[in-house]
């Protein structure tokens, strides 16, 4: 028995006295594609020295569906449902971004009521997306409760979306030149009611995290992205603003009537995971502000551009009664809308960042080439740099704070 004591004692002494003499080797770990913190199908090929990440190589493409190829083979309105599946946490915002891009090509101006409804859609989608981003981020860093709270709120939003668009998730709400239907009666009141009850709950959620010791330990100073890096790596959205880049396309390149609304753009200072979290929290409050203004000043009148009827969708009641409209409808359905040739690029400030559509048209009903500039793709490209020399457990926090979605990243 005594010898055993001596043995274990000396082994401990050897370990503490000369740790440098131990031979170590780097370990290669595949994190994902089905890892809970990669929020979808991202794979990180990590090289670890102990717990420190020495090299990170993101592997994408598990959700690549060839959306750009598909877009080249269908008419403009047919592609709307595919935009739902880009950032599937904010389909309404994608619908709007795509519609505005094509309207730019077709030189269409949508009526103010349509613009205001689209703004409400975008901002509700932003709240819904940020809520999930926040909940998943909190869960990754060890806080379950926020995740449960935010799903309750998102459920309320989905009820509103369902009432407006007929679908909870894949909304396909916009049409080129307008929207698929007007707001149902009383819907805007229910949106306001949601806003009223949402703000106290949001405060409660943020209170659980903002001064939470564990959450701060996991996020403050973790995954710092400098302002210069954020610009150089093409970061957009809350990830860029968390690093102090004051770019918000709603302010800088207003579209869909955003110039009429008063709202502030929260900007971070240090660019760590905590700042990105704070930006998202504040952006939701600003979204509520915009929604309230949009509902209050909702213009009356048409919600579909009259010019668009000639190109995309004649009125159904006229189609069934007038010969000319029937021929027009037939031509649009069979040959696709006749669009002008040209190159346009439009990007919108989506929850995840700037979602851009670059459309090359040679005229006719289908785009010749459509490139989708996805914010998640660009935001993830900084991962190899940010993860380097961080702890493995911090990679989880960084991924949570970047709030990406693979449907959009892989397209």
């Amino acid at each position, binding site marked *: 028995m005594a010898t055993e004591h001596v043995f274990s004692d000396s082994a401990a002494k050897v370990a503490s006295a000369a740790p440098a003499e131990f031979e170590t080797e780097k370990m290669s770990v595949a994190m994902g594609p089905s890892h809970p913190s990669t929020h979808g199908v991202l794979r990180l090929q990590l090289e670890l020295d102990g717990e420190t990440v020495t090299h990170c190589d993101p592997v*994408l*493409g598990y959700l*690549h569906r*060839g959306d*750009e*190829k*598909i877009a080249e*083979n*269908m*008419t403009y309105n*047919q592609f709307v449902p595919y935009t739902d599946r880009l950032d599937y946490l904010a389909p309404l915002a994608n619908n709007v971004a795509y519609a505005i891009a094509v309207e*730019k*090509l077709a030189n269409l101006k949508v009526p103010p009521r349509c613009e205001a409804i689209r703004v409400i859609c975008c901002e509700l989608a932003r709240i819904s997306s940020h809520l999930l981003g926040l909940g998943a981020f909190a869960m990754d860093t060890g806080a379950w409760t926020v995740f449960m709270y935010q799903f309750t709120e998102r459920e309320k939003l989905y009820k509103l979306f369902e009432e407006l668009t007929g679908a909870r998730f894949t909304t396909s709400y916009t049409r080129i030149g307008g929207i698929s239907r007007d707001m149902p009666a009383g819907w805007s009141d229910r949106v306001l009611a949601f806003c009223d009850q949402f703000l106290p709950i949001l405060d409660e959620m943020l209170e659980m995290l903002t001064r939470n010791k564990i959450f701060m330990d996991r996020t403050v100073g973790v995954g710092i992205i400098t302002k210069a890096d954020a*610009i*150089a*790596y*093409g970061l957009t959205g809350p990830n860029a603003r968390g690093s102090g*880049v*004051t*770019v918000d396309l709603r302010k*800088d*390149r207003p579209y869909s009537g955003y110039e009429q609304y008063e709202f502030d753009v929260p900007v971070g200072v240090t660019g760590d995971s905590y700042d990105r979290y704070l930006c998202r929290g504040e952006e939701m409050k600003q979204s509520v502000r915009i929604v309230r203004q949009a509902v209050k000043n909702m213009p009356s009148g048409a919600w579909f551009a009259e010019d668009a009827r000639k190109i995309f969708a004649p009125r159904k009641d006229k189609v069934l009664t007038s010969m000319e409209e029937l021929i027009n409808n037939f031509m649009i359905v*069979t*040959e*696709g809308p006749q669009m*002008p040739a*040209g*190159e*346009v*690029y*439009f*990007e919108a400030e989506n929850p995840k960042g*700037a979602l*851009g559509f*670059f459309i*090359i048209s040679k005229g006719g*009903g*289908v785009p*010749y*080439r459509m*490139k989708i*500039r996805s914010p998640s*793709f*660009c935001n*993830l*490209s*900084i991962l190899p*740099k940010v993860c380097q020399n961080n702890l493995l457990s911090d990679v989880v926090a960084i991924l949570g704070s970047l709030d990406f979605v693979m449907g959009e990243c*892989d*397209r």
Partner: protein
Amino acid sequence: MTASADVTAALQGKFPQIAPRASGDHPAINVPLAEAPAVLKSLRDEHGFDFLVDVTAADWGVDASPRFTVFWHLFSTKSSAYLRVAADCTSDAEPVAPTVCDLWPAANWHERETYDLLGIIFSKHPDLRRILMWDGYPYHPLRKDFPLAGIDTPLPDLEVGEITKATAKPAPMMGGPFVASSGEMNLTDAEPSAKDESWTERRVKPASE
């Protein structure tokens, strides 16, 4: 728009071969491919276009020459202006373009994607691998000669493919996007169930060579 006209004029003083490009919205310029990195550097350092939004390319068709055009979209975080820079690739068979990874690290993934989907080789790129398709995938799917139905290819994991004899089969195109064409043709040709019928439930899918 006047500010952007100034940019084009100022650039033309330094690079006389620059020409304005037709565009539906933002100002756009055509540059010779070899001068593209120098022009982009000048735009970044002297004209405030500090943000690289996007790098992409277009395939103008198998018979077109120049067949490939590379596009760069720039944004200025100060003046909030956009600029589109386009350059035609000199070779149609093996398109090569210079990399701008040293100017913007953001270009790294964009160029990998353009290489992956359109087969444009970015010379001096630090890490030109496929990014969306798997390593070893033999085609560039966004090229115009690649059929929408896809081409039968070996599985990404060759060992699994050897044992299971399975290949990567995309979904059949029946009931795909509906597009009709006009002209004097019979109804079956004018209104196919799918635009690309190179592979349907009746017709065998083309195998890879």
